[in-house]
């Protein structure tokens, strides 16, 4: 018998007071909280894994929002475009519009809204082959495909932030650029002219293990201070990467010739403050924590009105039996010095930070809790006004971690999204979509057909639909 090898290309809290007889009570509902499943009624038969959600807000029109997830064009694999979700009623309802220039769906996608005029910028990894596409849409409701402004191959995790200055938008797209010299791959594509031109700015100044981690996250304050957080990968052994957690800063919107060099570490006098050193990043492109892969959780948020105040969250493996642990720290002096851990969250991922205009910090994260075999993904929003000396804890969702089984990775996403506007935190996460009120302690609204009494999803004809992962939008009042 002959064995031959052929190569075939395939695109391949319960908060209970003690009593004589303790009866668990559901968490109290907080007034003003909304949780909305984004899948519209006309796609009630959908059973895809809509992971890695993201959200963009229009400051000029609070009712207008854009959202994305790994949601395919319902037309199927031959479709030349991929969809984006749009709401024009403040998140109460959502439509799916196929206006992204990517075959059926995108790989990584993030987006943000500029202000001159309010246009949507998106950074996507296009299907097929995953090149970066830097896109712009003047009119979110236009049937036209988003306009391509820049593209190149060999990048990972484009992450878009914007600011409006005079009559031009500034766009900052953090990305891991594998074509950067010397393995210093942490990069920010900076546009000072509304995306017409981009300049790739290298922000790593130290030697790496051949590359940086995939997550490079910008945050912009109103005074044009730009912070960027990234993982400075220094060495790796097997699946574990030894990394520094680094923050760079630019005080003038990255408009200079050598941007992102305004924050120097005292240890080596190089740009980039080392917030944590020699942490262990468990790089696992396999279902590792509640079916999700791990290795790139990183978030940074600046107080938009007081740019001295900045929060940072990342995840690593502490080594005390944890799988993956989220850490949250704060600087009140423009990144020069940092607190110790304000929050340490075991077996959590997808941390996202935002700071409201009154200085309240919001922390969105998803954590696996409970015993093996009965574990749950719990999505929480914490708020604090005192650097997490105290905080309000809100459970947005608590769903089985083992169902549905993953269709692909990431199971729920390598990131989710949290933003703030006025007196609200607005965000998005992905989770098991079983219509069970017990899973959504703050309540939930479905657009798609569901039958709550039987906890069933239904298609257009009323037939049962399998449970899957859906994106959920939420709004939560900021602590007064």
């Amino acid at each position: 018998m002959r064995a031959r090898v052929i190569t075939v290309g395939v695109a391949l809290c319960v908060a209970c007071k003690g009593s004589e007889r303790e009866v668990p009570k559901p968490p109290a509902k907080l007034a003003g909280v909304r949780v909305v499943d984004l899948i519209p009624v006309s796609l009630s038969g959908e059973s895809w894994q809509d992971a890695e959600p993201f959200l963009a807000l229009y400051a000029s029109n609070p009712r207008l929002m854009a959202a994305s997830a790994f949601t395919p064009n319902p037309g199927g694999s031959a479709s030349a475009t991929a969809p984006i979700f749009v709401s024009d009623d403040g998140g109460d309802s959502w439509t799916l519009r196929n206006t992204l220039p990517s075959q059926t769906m995108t790989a990584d996608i993030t987006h943000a809204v500029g202000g001159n005029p309010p246009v949507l910028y998106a950074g996507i990894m296009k299907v097929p082959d995953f090149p970066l596409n830097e896109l712009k849409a003047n009119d979110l409701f236009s049937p036209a495909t988003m306009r391509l402004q820049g593209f190149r191959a060999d990048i990972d995790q484009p992450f878009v932030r914007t600011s409006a200055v005079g009559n031009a938008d500034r766009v900052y797209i953090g990305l891991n650029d594998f074509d950067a010299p010397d393995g210093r791959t942490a990069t920010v594509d900076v546009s000072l002219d509304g995306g017409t031109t981009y300049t790739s700015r290298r922000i790593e100044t130290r030697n790496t293990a051949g590359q940086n981690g995939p997550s490079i996250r910008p945050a912009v304050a109103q005074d044009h201070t730009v912070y960027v957080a990234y993982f400075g990968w220094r060495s790796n052994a097997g699946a574990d990467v030894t990394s520094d957690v680094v923050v760079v800063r630019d005080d003038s919107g990255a408009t200079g010739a050598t941007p992102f060099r305004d924050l120097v570490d005292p240890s080596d006098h190089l740009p980039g403050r080392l917030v944590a050193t020699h942490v262990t990043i468990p790089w696992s492109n396999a279902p590792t924590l509640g079916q999700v892969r791990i290795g790139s959780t990183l978030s940074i948020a600046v107080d938009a009105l007081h740019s001295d105040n900045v929060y940072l969250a990342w995840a690593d493996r502490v080594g005390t039996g944890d799988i993956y642990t989220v850490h949250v720290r704060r600087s009140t002096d423009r990144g020069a010095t940092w607190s110790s851990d304000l929050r340490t969250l075991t077996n959590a991922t997808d941390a996202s930070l935002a700071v409201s205009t009154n200085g309240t910090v919001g922390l969105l994260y998803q954590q696996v809790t409970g015993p093996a075999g009965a574990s749950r993904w719990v999505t929480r929003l914490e708020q604090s006004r005192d650097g997490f000396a105290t905080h309000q804890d809100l459970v947005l969702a608590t769903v089985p971690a083992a169902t549905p089984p993953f269709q692909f990775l990431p199971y729920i996403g390598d990131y989710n999204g949290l933003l703030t506007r006025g007196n609200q935190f607005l965000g998005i996460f992905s989770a098991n979509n079983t219509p069970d009120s017990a899973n959504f302690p703050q309540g939930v609204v479905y657009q798609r057909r569901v039958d709550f009494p039987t906890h069933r999803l239904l298609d257009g004809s009323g037939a049962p639909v399998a449970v899957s992962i859906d994106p959920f939008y939420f709004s939560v009042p900021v602590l007064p």
Partner: protein
Amino acid sequence: MHIRSAMLFAVALSFPGAAVAQMSRAALVKQSDIIFIGTVTQVGAVAVPEVPPSDRTVVVRVDQVLEKPAPVALTAGDSVTVETARAGSLKAGIQATFYTTGWIFGRGVAVREVGHEPGQSPVVTADAREAVARARAVVNDADLKAHIQRAAMVVAGRVEQVRPAELTAAPTRPRRITEHDPDWQEAIIQVEDGIKGAQAGEQVVVPR
């Protein structure tokens, strides 16, 4: 161990474009993912607020759904907004078979017309269904034929084992680590019927 037949494909197809009016039914079917018999009820109008009305939008009452993706909720009696291929091509009261692609999905469905066939009035549902099914079979057969022609091997067989791939080709550039790295696996297949490039009784290894 999984037991299954394996058909190995390696190509994707595309047909050259053609003017809508000259498209064969098969070409219309190939480009469409939502096909239905419907009656135009309004011209220059929309059925859902998410779509702005224009001289190219019409509202069509769905009389019979012939093809649609499983996730899409669309049944007879629904009103669909259709963006026509050209303004003025449809008038109220016309019944036709509509070949479309999904455009906007919200409280209702909006589609883009690839083409339409007025046919007889009223459209005989059974005839239209059979015609579309026949055209779809033609498209599927053409797809399959092209796949077979380009594939190195086509076999029916039994997957004996799946294991991490041992790719021999060296990478042409420095190794990089991303979450988009393929997790190559290879299947050991015992060939039961060699359709192309292999014979029954052989064992082949297919990376994926």
